[in-house]
């Protein structure tokens, strides 16, 4: 196919349509169709080498014909795609092409464009080395402008000595055509960039001088190119000077030349000028400082050579005057950005310059462009980091405004900056902290960043931090009358400040009230999240719990700072601090109860959430105290429910916001939660048991206060009161006012089922309730179970036959369950049909170990007449003391159940309903 096509094409080429003089083939036969046939042959990857070489031969032959150059452009295109697709043929191309190019170049009457096309092809196959440089240069002396521009743009690719090339380029910088001038100037820059060292100082001076001259060109793009020439060749000129002083003078001179261009009307030129200003390694300080003032400074007696030696020093100063002010004030953010970047580079040259530059940059923070603000902040940050700049009060004032900026990028930068700069005074530090808090109020999402900033501020300015904490200590202390005493991100922020200050210096540690550390442990969750990158969380927790504990134990002035923070990460043994940290969190919970009574429901709920977060963070540190931790979680859950119930009573007193159903729902949850607290934990000490009893009493009391009266509740309450009284009398334990009062009422008979309607009495009782200090021990174990249905997942359900019983293969893992516990599996088909299956643990070899895993087939007898159904299975444990027969006569559990496993769902599909499975 391919060969046939080529034969046909070749035939067309050999049988010319026009008259052939002397029987020679001419390219007149090259119609568009022929050309495209050849092209498709070339680009087709399956064309054979033989055909390609034949095509190559034909094409080079046509090129070699002396007079007709009409189709040479097309042939060059074809050859260029040939060399691209078949690089192996490039070598055979170079010889004929070189000779053709030489003949085109040496014949002044030939087309310059054709010569350029030939050269371009030679460049693409990298075969220009054998060309004569004189001939090459002669090409740009032809009248064709576009060829001249092309040649200047590609001049470096040809083997021309710089000594010859540079004068040519220099000459063309004065061409009447601006595009040629531009190409020549760009050529000069690329010579500089290519690393060619020009030793002839006359040429360097010439190029530099020509650049300066063309800075006044009428065309923007010529000025832009000239600016680059001045910058590059100016640097080369300065480097070529031998004397140090000369070098400096020269560098100053170049700097001033570029300064003169920053007021150009073209944006590109201005951007280029500011970029060029940032490339200087040396500039006299006088000139640099002048760039920051629009007013020309009076000439000092002793000043740099560049200004004083010159006849028109004022002129020079005027050129530099206010250059950077114009830059940062510019209408275009590109220019502002370039100016800021240059300022950043130039700060290395002179310390005094950096100080003044910050003045200007701090103003830019008020600009309306985000790019400019961000760039200015970055520059200030760099300057602050280089430690040559001390932030002034006025600067900080401007910086603080960016803390509440709309753009999160700018806020982040400002946080970083404030964390790293040196603040000048206590006053400024105070304002800074306050501004950070204001930002925290407006943008709660930035909490972690703000905490990190506060941590850094505390770290860098320990003394200021201590003063601030002392001043704001009242905010941290929870108070009864003010909502502000409750948890807020602000308090957590202050705690972060305290932590960082105390870590830095022992003396600061002693100055900070130790109570703060116990609070900090309570807000550990948030703090840990924010400082996770800076500190080892385990060690921080240990540190806090240690500091916080000392508060409980001794209140002495002489405290020693623990060294625990240095502990290595990933310690193996169970860290002791986990327990004490939990203790601190629970102490916070206790403190919150006061606020519950004040009616600050929302605030307390938030605070409880943060306590829970802290517990989560603690759990991340250790598994050894899983039982205690689970107890703490459950306890917080109970308190949370109590808070909501309380809030309900507080609110419903004034407004009917809640439905009564809501309260019942809450009370139901509370009941379950307290029961779980009572029965799911073993190894509790007496105090904790008593507290749980109190909670149970409160739970019953609250149920009585609700709109629905229950005889059962009343019975439970009176039984509980009796047992508590018994306990009190037997062990002579000090009880709380709440229990005492309740017992008193019960004993003298004034509190009976009939009188419970007395809401005032109930309320009085309720208000007597207080949370107590909880002392958790490591012996607490959590009764828990895990259920997994074997061979089941959401895509492959279990099968059943309607009416016949099925067995559910369960994998059961029990934790801390003993033989005394009675376990039931509850299988619920829907709300109405529930089966209970007793799990005889002794059958499985008893439960002597803390955890045990076994398989158990649960029977389900009542399978419905349906195509598919779902069962919900959970494991419950009988609460032995709750001796009320809830389910009678069906052989089910005799006592109330508390569920020790999460509920799992199992899907069943009827054996006869296969179509349901195919989907």
């Amino acid at each position, binding site marked *: 196919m391919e060969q046939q096509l080529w034969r046909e094409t070749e035939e067309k080429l050999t049988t010319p349509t026009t008259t052939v003089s002397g029987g020679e083939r001419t390219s007149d036969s090259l119609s568009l169709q022929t050309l495209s046939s050849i092209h498709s042959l070339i680009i087709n990857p399956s064309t054979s080498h033989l055909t390609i070489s034949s095509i190559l031969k034909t094409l080079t032959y046509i090129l070699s014909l002396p007079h007709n150059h009409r189709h040479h452009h097309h042939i060059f295109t074809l050859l260029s795609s040939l060399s691209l697709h078949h690089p192996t043929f490039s070598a055979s191309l170079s010889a004929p092409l070189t000779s053709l190019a030489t003949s085109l170049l040496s014949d002044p009457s030939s087309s310059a464009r054709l010569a350029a096309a030939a050269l371009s092809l030679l460049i693409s196959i990298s075969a220009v080395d054998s060309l004569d440089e004189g001939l090459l240069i002669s090409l740009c002396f032809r009248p064709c402008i576009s060829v001249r521009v092309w040649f200047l743009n590609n001049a470096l690719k040809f083997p021309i000595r710089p000594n010859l090339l540079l004068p040519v380029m220099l000459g063309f910088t004065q061409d009447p055509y601006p595009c040629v001038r531009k190409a020549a100037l760009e050529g000069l820059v690329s010579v500089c960039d290519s690393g060619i060292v020009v030793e002839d100082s006359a*040429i360097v001076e010439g190029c530099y001088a020509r650049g300066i001259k063309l800075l006044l060109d009428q065309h923007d793009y010529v000025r832009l190119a000239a600016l680059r020439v001045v910058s590059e060749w100016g640097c080369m000129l300065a480097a070529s000077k031998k004397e140090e002083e000369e070098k400096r003078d020269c560098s100053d001179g170049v700097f001033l030349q570029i300064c003169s261009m920053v007021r150009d*009307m073209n944006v590109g030129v201005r951007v280029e000028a500011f970029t060029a200003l940032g490339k200087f390694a040396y500039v006299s300080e006088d000139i640099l400082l002048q760039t920051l003032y629009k007013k020309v400074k009076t000439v000092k007696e002793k000043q740099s050579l560049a200004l004083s030696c010159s006849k028109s020093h004022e002129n020079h100063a005027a050129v530099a005057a206010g250059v950077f002010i114009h830059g940062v004030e510019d209408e275009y953010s590109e220019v502002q950005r370039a100016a800021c970047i240059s300022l950043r580079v130039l700060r290395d040259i002179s310390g005094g310059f950096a100080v003044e530059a910050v003045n200007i940059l701090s103003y830019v923070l008020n600009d309306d462009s985000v790019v400019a603000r961000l760039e200015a902040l970055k520059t200030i940050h760099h300057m602050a980091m280089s430690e040559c700049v001390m932030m002034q009060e006025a600067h900080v004032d401007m910086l603080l405004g960016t803390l509440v900026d709309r753009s999160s990028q700018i806020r982040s930068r400002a946080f970083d900056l404030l964390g790293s700069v040196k603040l000048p005074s206590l006053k400024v530090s105070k304002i800074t902290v306050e501004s950070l808090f204001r930002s925290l109020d407006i943008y709660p999402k930035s909490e972690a960043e703000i905490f990190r900033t506060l941590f850094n501020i505390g770290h860098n300015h320990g003394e200021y931090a201590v003063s601030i904490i002392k001043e704001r200590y009242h905010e941290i202390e929870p108070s009864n009358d003010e909502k502000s005493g409750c948890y807020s991100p602000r308090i957590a922020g202050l705690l972060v400040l305290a932590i960082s200050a105390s870590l830095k210096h022992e003396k600061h540690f002693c100055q900070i009230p130790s109570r703060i550390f116990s609070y900090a442990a309570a807000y550990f969750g948030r703090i840990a999240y924010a400082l996770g990158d800076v500190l080892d969380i385990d060690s921080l927790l240990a540190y806090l719990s240690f500091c916080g504990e000392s508060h409980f134990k001794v209140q002495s002035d002489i405290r020693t700072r623990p060294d625990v923070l240095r502990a290595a990460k990933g310690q193996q043994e169970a860290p002791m601090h986990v327990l004490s940290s939990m203790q601190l969190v629970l102490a916070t919970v206790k403190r919150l109860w006061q606020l519950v009574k004040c009616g600050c429901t929302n605030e307390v709920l938030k605070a409880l959430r943060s306590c829970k977060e802290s517990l989560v963070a603690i759990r991340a540190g250790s598994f050894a105290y899983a039982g205690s931790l689970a107890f703490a979680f459950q306890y917080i859950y109970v308190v949370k429910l109590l808070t909501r119930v309380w809030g309900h009573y507080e609110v419903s007193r004034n407004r009917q916001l809640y439905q009564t159903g809501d309260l019942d729902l809450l009370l139901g949850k509370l009941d379950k939660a307290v029961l779980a607290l009572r029965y799911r934990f073993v190894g509790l000490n007496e105090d904790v048991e008593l507290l749980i009893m109190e909670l149970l009493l409160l739970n019953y009391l609250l149920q009585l206060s609700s709109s629905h009266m229950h005889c059962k509740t009343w019975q439970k309450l009176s039984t509980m009161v009796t047992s508590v009284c018994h306990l009190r009398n037997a062990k002579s334990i000090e009880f709380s006012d709440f229990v005492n009062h309740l017992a008193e009422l019960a004993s003298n008979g004034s509190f009976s089922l009939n009188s419970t309607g007395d809401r005032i009495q109930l309320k009085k009782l309720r208000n007597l309730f207080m949370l107590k200090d909880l002392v958790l021990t490591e012996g607490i174990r959590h009764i828990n179970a895990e259920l997994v249905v074997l061979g089941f997942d959401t895509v492959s359900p279990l099968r059943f036959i309607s009416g016949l019983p099925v067995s559910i293969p369960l994998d059961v893992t029990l934790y801390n369950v003993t033989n005394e516990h009675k376990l039931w599996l509850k299988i619920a088909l829907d709300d109405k049909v529930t089966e209970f299956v007793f799990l005889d643990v002794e059958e499985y070899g008893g439960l002597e170990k803390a955890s045990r895993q076994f398989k158990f087939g649960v029977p389900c007898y009542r399978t419905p007449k349906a195509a598919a159904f779902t069962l919900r299975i959970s494991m419950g444990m009988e609460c032995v003391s709750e001796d009320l027969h809830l389910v009678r006569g069906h052989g089910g559990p005799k006592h109330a159940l508390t569920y020790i496993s999460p509920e799992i769902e199992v899907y069943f599909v009827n054996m006869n309903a296969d179509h349901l499975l195919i989907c």
Partner: protein
Amino acid sequence: MGIDCLVLGAGQEVGKSCAVVNINGKRIMFDCGMHMGDPKHPYPDFSRISKTGDFDGALTCIIITHFHLDHVAALPYFTEVCGFRGPIYMTHPTKALAPLMLKDNLKHMINGMGDKEKFTSDDIDSCMEKVIAVDLKQTIRVDEDLEIRAYYAGHVIGAAMFYARVGDASVLYTGDYNMTPDRHLGAAQIDRLPLDLVITESTYGTTIRDSRFAHESEFLKAVHTCVADGGKVLIPTFALGRAQEICILLEDYWERRNLKVPIYFSGGLTIQANMYSKMLISWTSQKVKEAYTNHNAFDFKHVRTFDRSLIHAPGPCVLFATPGWLNTGFSLEVFKQWATSEMNLVTLPGQCIAGTIGQKLMSGKPKKIDLDPETQIDVRCQIHKLAFSPHTDSKGIMDLMKFLSPKHVILVHGEKPKMVKLKGRIESELGIPCYHPANNETVSIPSTHYVRADASASFINTTLCPNFSFKNSASEDKCTSELQICDVRVSEGLLVMQNNNQKPNVIHQDDWSGKTDT
């Protein structure tokens, strides 16, 4: 042939800008303003243009740079009363806003004016009908020889510099301009043109202003402190220009700092002006234009209309009220109420006309101000002077002159001593001849004049190809030498004027040897 510039107004003074420039026989009037502080001679002396009153024959066209009264207010008088019928050019925003300003001015027209010098609201309308609106960088051919082009000037919305060219002579009339951008307008923007003459304003001929950011920060800080302490801020401004700039500044600050304090605008003209600004987005600064797709900067979120009852309302607020000089109107009314409290703040514009309360407040801080024999205001409030200005400073003038490098400069719109100093700087630093004519003086300068000539074939042939000449020139003060390579193809030509034929001819120097009959 040359350029003659007759300065009819704003010569060595500020007010009634008007310059008649004769370029190669074409006469253009740039600006036609009125002097607001000189009721005896409010208008330029038009009789100097034409003694007979045939203005149509004497003037080719009128060009108005912007809508300020000292640049436009005499136009209705000149067209409707004096009877000029020729074309008038101004930019689109100027055409839209000038009638607003002119009609507003009618109310305050100086009483001392004779009847002949007055014009009516209808005159303004019929005058505006004759105006041809132009766009920036749009080249307009006024007639066969004269072409004009407008360039962005900053200053106020719609302000333009005008370039005029007749044959080879060209002139730039800058009008008022600003070389640094502000919150709503960009900096002046012009190409580097070959110019014979630049007529530039020189309001701040000797002042060098500090960074704009510094002024803004001071102002914002003053306002923020005041409202944070619960005080009220009164900003007396004129409806157009400064009001929009300050409002954008405040709006942006309010937005960034999440402030909720209300900002009020009083008076219909200001609100109308805001509406116009909103429509004229393409005439604002680059940043406003860039942000426009998301949010129109003149769509003020925090700004509300002020109601008189709010004067005594408690709580902080910011109020923009007209006029800016506190001489009369609503701003004075509010000032009377608010000036008595230390918590409040009053800002004052950069310049106030003598005799106004604004001017009294500017010159030191008086404790009491006598409004009239019966009323005395106890001034306790804080005063903040605004340093914003829409005019370029002397550095800006120098920068522009350096960039344009014209052959001659004429200074107008400034005070004489400042002009003298600036003239000295332009002549010494830039080496450009500079003039500062007084009113009714004429400056004549020569203009470039090109001669058409034939060129010989050999000359054309040689100019097609570059021809380099090398020379190593040693610079005077240093011992270093620099390589100079010049293209000398044109210098090989000779201009030949033959006796029998007046048409000049350019030939190549090689051709010269054969000629004997010249």
